[in-house]
């Protein structure tokens, strides 16, 4: 860790944060927010949190930015300045921010120094995970083993959160089917104006590699940074790329709305189902070690490893499908006619 670099990135982050909330153009704000996320990603790599950085790169900088851009594109770029009338709200905001800030500052004095190897956080639970991950689960990536096994229950609900979000967006935005058909018949090719052969060609060539890489990230998550989330988001991003470079009809032709939601559903179901199978086999919920009874040629430790791969696959399916669904609905305001 190089603290000068650290400090530099942190100050850039603060600058970006200030810029993104103060620019008057929402599109710029979205882009600056993307930059902010990338800087975050750098910061975390620099602090050794590679998995977090990977996720932030794909989810925060990637999907979030796309969603922001899509939303801004669908609404308006302009922010009206009404500074004069809103003293009261600004006062409340300042008061809340300073009071929360003050309370937080009061706590910092008691914290152990930054990156102190003797801090409670580094000495209480984490040594167990670090020293036992191989003996318990045979997974060298400690983050993966903690994520998918020691705290697999968290992760299951995290997947459920994503699924719920996808469903929520559909519930809020999606319009009735008849309306959709009606409108899409009128406007057949909506992204005509954006047609660009080079982009389309490059995008088309990139998609298979992206998907391959996504599968690699997923499969190799046990040994290197990555896993279900990152893989799933990249997989989803490849579909979004199609939608952006071509149009939404092409995407929906390959992956209909119904399949989209069903896949998201199946992904979570794979996760919860594996947990439930453990329960049916007589162990506790999500206790993969029992799976050695039904998996050929595995002992209890490898069963955990395989179980994790199984649920990571579920996560990847769910996340990729839901990311696409989020994009499709937000970019088209729920009408499924055109994208960006």
């Amino acid at each position: 860790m190089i603290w000068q670099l650290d400090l530099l990135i942190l100050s850039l982050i603060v600058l970006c944060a200030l810029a993104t909330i103060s620019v008057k153009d929402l599109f710029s704000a979205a882009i600056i927010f993307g930059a902010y996320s990338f800087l975050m990603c750098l910061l975390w790599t620099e602090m050794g949190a590679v998995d977090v950085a990977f996720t932030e790169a794909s989810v925060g900088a990637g999907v979030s930015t796309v969603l922001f851009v899509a939303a801004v594109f669908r609404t308006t770029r302009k922010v009206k300045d009404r500074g004069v009338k809103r003293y009261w709200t600004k006062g409340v905001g300042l008061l809340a921010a300073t009071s929360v800030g003050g309370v937080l500052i009061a706590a910092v004095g008691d914290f152990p120094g930054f990156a102190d190897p003797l801090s409670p956080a580094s000495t209480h639970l984490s040594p167990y995970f670090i020293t036992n991950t191989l003996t318990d689960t045979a997974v060298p990536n400690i983050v993966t083993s903690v994520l998918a096994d020691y705290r697999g229950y968290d992760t299951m609900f995290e997947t459920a959160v994503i699924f719920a979000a996808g469903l929520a967006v559909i519930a809020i935005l999606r319009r009735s089917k008849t309306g959709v058909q009606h409108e899409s018949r009128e406007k057949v090719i909506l992204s005509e104006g954006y047609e660009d052969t080079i982009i389309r060609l490059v995008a088309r060539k990139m998609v298979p590699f992206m998907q391959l890489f996504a599968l690699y990230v997923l499969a190799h998550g046990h040994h290197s940074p990555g896993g279900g989330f990152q893989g799933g988001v990249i997989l989803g991003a490849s579909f979004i790329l199609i939608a952006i470079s071509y149009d939404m009809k092409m995407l929906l032709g390959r992956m209909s709305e119904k399949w989209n939601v069903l896949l998201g559903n199946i992904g979570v179901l794979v996760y919860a189902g594996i947990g439930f199978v453990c329960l049916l086999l007589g162990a506790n919920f999500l206790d993969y070690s029992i799976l050695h009874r039904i998996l050929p040629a595995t002992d209890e430790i490898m069963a955990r490893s395989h179980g994790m791969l199984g649920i990571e696959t579920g996560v990847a399916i769910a996340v990729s499908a839901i990311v696409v669904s989020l994009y499709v609905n937000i970019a088209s305001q729920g009408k499924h006619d055109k994208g960006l």
Partner: protein
Amino acid sequence: MIASEQAVALMVVLPLLSALVINMAGWFDRRLCFPIALFALLGSCCSAFITVSRVIKSGVIHYRLGGWAPPMGIEYVVDHLNALVLVIIFVVSLLALLFSYKSIQVELPEKILQFYTLYLLLVAGLAGMTITGDAFNLYVLMEISALTSYALIALGDKRALVASFNYIILGTIGASLYLLGVGHLYIMTGSLNMADLQTILPALLDARAIAVAFVLVMGGVWVKMAFFPMHGWLPNAYSYAPSSTSCLVAPLMTKVSVYIMIRMMFSVFNPNYIFVYLDWGRLVVPLATVAIIFGSISALAQKDLRKMLTYIIVAEVGYMVGGAWLANVTGLTGAIYHILADAMMTLCLFMVVGAIIYKLKDSSMDSMEFIFRRMPVTSVVFVIGAFAMIGIPPTCGFFSKWYLISGAIETSQWHYIFALLFSSLVNAFVFFRLFEIGFFGKKPADGHDHHAPEIAVSEAPVTMLVPMVLTALSLIAIGIYTNEIVTVLITKTLPVGL
């Protein structure tokens, strides 16, 4: 027996799995949604009752998820307190589900599929929040219940979107503050397991960061439960939501948050720290007093039935927070008992209003006119629910007030007693005004022996009446069995050192 041991896990897993199954089956046939949801919640309900009986018989149950021992892994901890809350969650959600069967067909015919899926996810989230013994896991589940409730509320009428947006912003602030508080606990102790935290924390009494962690956790939970002055999001969100959503969300969300507050106060921190070392009861109880009085006065000013009920909820949250912070056994007993009582009362009244909306498409006070003749069963249920809110014996509302006031007398918090009595009186006023409209009509009759206009009986459908009547009966039953509930469940959970 395995089935009874796994019942603990099934409570949360069943709604989650069935939500997924509903979503799949629903794409093929929408009529499948309701029965699947019904069976899942029935199963969860049974599991909850099995678990309660196990807890009563053999004490606290620990369930290791993934087979990992805490504090490494996540565990479920079911003691007498959250067993009670779990039963409340599943009973309320089952009754509200039954109630929603008809109303959802009218209010959201196109979104049935999403509604039921989100509904069950919400129930799973609430149950998970209640049952978990891990502070971070609680955050994840808090978010799932929040996210689903944002969506369910946004499905309401045209003002619901803005209400839902405000709820998203404030709900996120609340959840984030909670997460930050857990972060502070983590940086100071290195642990996330509640039981583990409780053993470590006494050694860190003097650290200011622990006090900050406590403030953040409480602040987060207070935003979530709409404790004054963080209540701003609640009235609009609950009153513009579809009636079947508010029947689920209004009774449960605030109550589960109150439960979490109690859990954090006494199972992570300890009474000695909060009431002796920090001594913040003196600050919070007056705030609760203000919450009660504010909620009551606002309720008085409302013209819309649901708005009025939501402000009553704000006041009731004040009851429970105040009771929990009275720093004595009686007050805490009252607060816990009131979780149960208020969940059922709120459910009862929201279902009544839901039935009125279903029949008359209106939730203003004027819609109550001649309701006693138009919907006799509904109005009897309404009367019982209102009596419970006012606190007339033998309904459960009386006994929770009894405990809360007794607790306040023990610590001489006279302002809190005044607030409780004041809100009872305001409730009495508010509800009797409605009774009068419902019984005699808006305008007084003239002449001596007039006969009121002929109004045909047009009662809500059976699927609405059954849960309503059951809830109303439960209000009385809970009141009658107060002693049993308190001695069998509540007194067992009271923390040592109070």
